[in-house]
């Protein structure tokens, strides 16, 4: 694709970056050269699978921090880090009522950086719930749900529910007094729904009280079911932002 348009700069740095970015291997990976010309800067965004969530250009209001406070982006970043730390925790955690608590306790005593991973996972989960609320409020108060973004607001409401569900299911996993009673309180609420309540409570818990069956169900939802759903809806969310013409701004 793009050949180097920029002659190598003067001096050592110029020579070094020429050697680094204008060689066969680099080009096989990134196609465009180092993004130091407008053309390459657009190419790098358009041809990279991760960056191409973005448009290649954006209106200048949208890089003003006070327009979005980056809140959606931060929520997404939390989601990514939670995935990484969550996978680390999965290496040590067995979702069984007679083991789970010991496994979590062992993170502190037996596993190097175990507590750091657990703390990061825990605090970021709280952070994500807060940031998704704040993101919703910023979208609301900037009137960014207005046409044609109605549907993306709905996708957002689904993401809010999924975020809460992820946090709620994760709450049970340490299997301590805090988790089991928080979930018991929560599930008793679900149990009071007319007509469907008792059934849905039974299905979620796999029984009448929070026990082994509930733990494995919550675990499965927490580590695979809900994250996949959330990832799918995030993909739709981001796709729609671009389809709807980028972020909202004054007409």
């Amino acid at each position, binding site marked *: 694709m793009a050949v180097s348009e920029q002659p190598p700069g003067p001096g050592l740095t110029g020579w070094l970056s020429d050697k680094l970015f204008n060689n066969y291997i680099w080009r096989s990976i990134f196609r465009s050269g180092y993004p130091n010309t407008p053309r390459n800067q657009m190419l790098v965004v358009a041809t990279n699978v991760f960056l191409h969530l973005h448009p290649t250009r954006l209106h200048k209001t949208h890089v003003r921090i006070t327009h979005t406070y980056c809140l959606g*982006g931060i929520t997404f970043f939390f989601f990514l880090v939670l995935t990484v730390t969550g996978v680390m925790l999965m290496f040590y955690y067995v979702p069984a009522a007679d083991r789970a608590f010991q496994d979590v306790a062992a993170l502190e005593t037996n596993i190097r950086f175990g507590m750091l991973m657990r703390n990061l996972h825990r605090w970021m989960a709280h952070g994500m719930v807060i940031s998704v609320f704040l993101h919703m409020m910023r979208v609301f108060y900037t009137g960014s749900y207005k*046409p044609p*973004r109605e549907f993306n607001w709905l996708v957002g409401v689904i993401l809010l529910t999924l975020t809460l569900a992820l946090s709620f299911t994760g709450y049970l996993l340490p299997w301590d007094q805090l988790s089991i009673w928080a979930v*018991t309180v929560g599930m008793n609420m679900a149990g009071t729904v007319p007509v469907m309540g008792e059934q849905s409570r039974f299905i979620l818990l796999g029984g009448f009280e929070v026990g082994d069956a509930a733990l494995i169900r919550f675990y499965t939802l927490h580590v695979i079911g809900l994250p996949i759903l959330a990832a799918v809806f995030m993909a739709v969310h981001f796709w729609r932002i671009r389809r709807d013409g980028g972020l909202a*701004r004054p007409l």
Partner: protein
Amino acid sequence: MAVDAPAVPRTAAAIRPRRERDQELLVWPDLVFIEFIAATVFLLMFVILSTVLDAPLLNQANLDITPNPSKAAWYLVALQELLLHMHPALGGVIAPTFALGIIGAFPYIDRSNDGQGTWFGTSNAIKITLFAAAFASIFTVALILYDQGRHVNVVTSVAQEFDKDWQWPGKLSMFQNVRAIQTGWEWSIPVPESAQLGPGEHDGELNWPDDLSHVPMPFNGTSGPDWMRWGPPTFLPAWMQAMYWYDLNMNTPAFVVELFIPVAIMVLLPVIMILMLRRLGWVNNMRDGSIAIFTGMMSVYFILTIIGAGFRGAGQDLVLPWDVPHID
């Protein structure tokens, strides 16, 4: 209808000039740089937080030992707080589901394009936001204090300064809290004996709450004239039987306390707020109204969370934050 609500209104897109290149920046480096900084800052912040503050781990789960108070996760504490004041199905599930539905409906209620992408896009938006936040917070706190009977304590202690034997007057017993309408209030009106149905005393008086606590529902199969009495619908599949109100009797006083009054409050207060804002001349369109309702809902949620998390002690009693017992 399709004309009213185009999914992607062509007009909205067409108003905008095709492209204003001079107003545009390149994503690389301008946006990618900001994203990188934000990610780094937040990662650092959380790593630092995680080294100084450990996630809680209490004793191993044990369903035989109930901590007092046992609380839901903090973002559900608001619902738990509602449970104290109304029927659990209403507070825990129906009201929040409605709230989510209303939040989802905003773009379909407020369809105009004006003011999009601008903070507080209408001329009164900030005033409305402050008003709605204050209105919702004050009423939420006041209602919780009322339902806890705090006004009774305050009035009694003031009155006892003057008269040591002062008691909350029996005539006002139904105003001690909402539940007192059901449990602390009795009245009766004379009715012809023949009109008295149901299991209560047929003494020519209609008594609150006893005579009204077991009112047969129409077509429940066990009350009313003979032709309305029939056996349980065993011919239906079990799940349908479960839905049929066979032998269902309404506890009217409980219905009033747990469902009617809470629903009335949750519907009327927002309506009153909107009417006041209209009277003030601040709310002039759907966007203004939406701002008021959204702000009100967020404020109620916020206040309920604060009270539920910080002010509910053993037995879910209203206490000061430092009196909330520490659970381990």
